[in-house]
């Protein structure tokens, strides 16, 4: 696993413009955003943003302390990969006529991916899993003719009863 890959989760006020504020901060401080997910939570006034980024310990400290200063950010934490569940959804469209269908399906089965669409000359496969699993699946599937691919970015949650919450 890449030592420099960091996953940061935050709870923010569910206002318009909050995402712009967070991403503007990342842009002006020169922090990377490798992926970003955002959605409302069980509290409708609060949204949860998860950002994966690349950087050393010092950069991570800067990200956490700069983000923490934003008025609409209620809390922000770096998620420990060993103590959290990370999931991502992949959709990949493969050029596959009749001959290729079984090949793609059997690869998908091994990875517990689902075929969610089939046409005369293409298939769409869906896979949910941790990012490394998705990477592994993509490495294999790239041997075939991928015509479109998208992944949602990581969403994450701590294991056990610990929750991300306002201090």
């Amino acid at each position: 696993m890449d030592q420099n890959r960091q996953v940061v989760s935050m709870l923010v006020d569910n206002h318009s413009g909050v995402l712009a504020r967070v991403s503007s901060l990342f842009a002006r401080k020169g922090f990377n955003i490798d992926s970003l997910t955002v959605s409302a939570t069980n509290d409708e006034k609060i949204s949860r943003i998860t950002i994966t980024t690349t950087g050393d310990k010092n950069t991570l400290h800067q990200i956490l302390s700069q983000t923490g200063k934003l008025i609409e950010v209620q809390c922000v934490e770096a998620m420990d990969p060993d103590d959290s569940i990370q999931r991502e959804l992949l959709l990949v469209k493969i050029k596959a006529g009749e001959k290729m269908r079984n090949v793609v399906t059997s690869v998908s089965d091994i990875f517990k991916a689902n075929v969610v669409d089939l046409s005369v000359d293409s298939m769409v496969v869906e896979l949910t899993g941790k990012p490394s699993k998705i990477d592994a699946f993509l490495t294999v599937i790239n041997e075939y003719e991928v015509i479109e691919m998208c992944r949602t970015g990581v969403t994450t949650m701590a294991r056990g009863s610990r929750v991300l919450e306002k201090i």
Partner: protein
Amino acid sequence: MRVSGAEIICKILMEQGVDTIFGYPGGAVLPIYDALYDHRDKIKHYITAHEQGAAHAADGYARATGKTGVVLATSGPGMTNLVTGIATAYMDSIPMVAITGNVASSLIGKDSFQEVYTMGITMPITKHNFFVQDVNDLAETLREAFRIAGSGRKGPVLIDITKDATINEGEFHSGKKFEEKKKPFDNKDALKKVVEYIDSSRQPLICFGGGVVGSEANAEMYELVHKMDIPAVHSIMGTGVLSWNDPLNIGMVGMHGRFSGNKALDQADLIIAVGFRFSDRVALNPGKFGRNAKFVQIDIDPSEVNKNVKVDYSVIGDIKQVLQKLIPMLDDTKHPNWIHQIDEWKKADYQEVDSETKLKPHQIIGAITEAVGEDGIMATDVGQHQMWAVQYCCRTRPRSFLTSGGLGTMGFGYGAAIGAKVAQPQRKVVHITGDGSFHMNMNEVATAVSYKIPVVTVVINNDVLGMVRQWQHSFYDDRYSNTTLSRATDYVKTAEGFGAKGYRAETIAEFKKVLQEALEVDGPVWIECPIGRDEQVLPMIPNGGTVENIIMG
């Protein structure tokens, strides 16, 4: 009580103790100005020549007093003209509330006349910004703006209000003025660690900056330095926290700081940074900055830790609260050898030579210092004159030297001086500028004339953009690209044309005489002081350098 949004704005301003605002009217703020008309006996509004001047005035007002400055502008160009002023305040952590009108909510997003996306433009230059479209949100949002601007690490907050939200009526309930309640610092273990660092140091040095001013902790800083006999240096933003003639205050460090202070930084074995953010104008080479030292940092903002320079230990909290708890834990100490060593270095500090026939910058600043007294306020623009001013201003208290330290805003000084004078009319206020900076916002003389604001402007005129020219001389083989101004501005006539008074002085004796006269005038005065175009700001450490690379002449 049901009142209009504009009336709510006025009521909140009064509730928050605001009696002075700076601004410029326009279409989107007509309702607000109409309401201000009803309260003109309680809220004094100063209309400037340009919104930028209004923003700098609110900033200067805040810097001189510690109170939150307020500026009001209309949508579109009114708001964009505030941008430099807001960014200036943001970089120096100055409490300010900027209120801007926007077009009616039915016109938002339709490229309406004088519509811009204020939130997007000001997001990166404010501590926080708000967009209010519903009159019912107005009162609480304004209160929140004053709370955010004036608490913790202070800064500018902008509230963008649609025109309909100022016209519509909403319920208003009176509230209280925001006063920051600082919690006593209670992390004793952290302070014990700091005590250990100080106890094990033989050559400690304190670096203080604008954070000490923001926290109103100059008395605590004095106590710390003297109790522990620790010499101190400061950034430009720390000017005046310790008196210039305090034997333990070595003075400003960094690019144009003293040799002795920079040498002390280089040789210290412990650097205690207090409200000091290791800007690139001080830590010119972050890897070699304080290369023999361990670092302890005390700051209110955790994001300042390890941002520019790696520190060994940090304490996060309000500086005043931290120092109040730290000082009693320390035993009185003396560092005679270290101080003796610094005194030796002081002998090698750069010395200017006086002249009776030609005006010299250090003599001009010296004469201003004498004339305004300890209580006087100096406001500067940016460039060589700013550096000469900070080197020779001899301030004895904080909030008496107003300068754009972080953003380096040419054109800051005139508005800031006006704001400071309005805030504290009993104090003498001198605006020190150069001919480059002055041409940016000299139009604010119109404001000073209208309101008879006695601000004296001293224009140190070398007919070039001196600081850039100095770099062109040192690093670009004397290729003076676009820095020779060759302007023919007649400062005396121009001042008179605006209804102000103008003087010109060619020797220091003339200048002293004219300055005395100028300080008696009941309105703005300009004094032009021609100097040689090759005057340099010395010493100088180039970018990336240390005291070993210092240029002394």
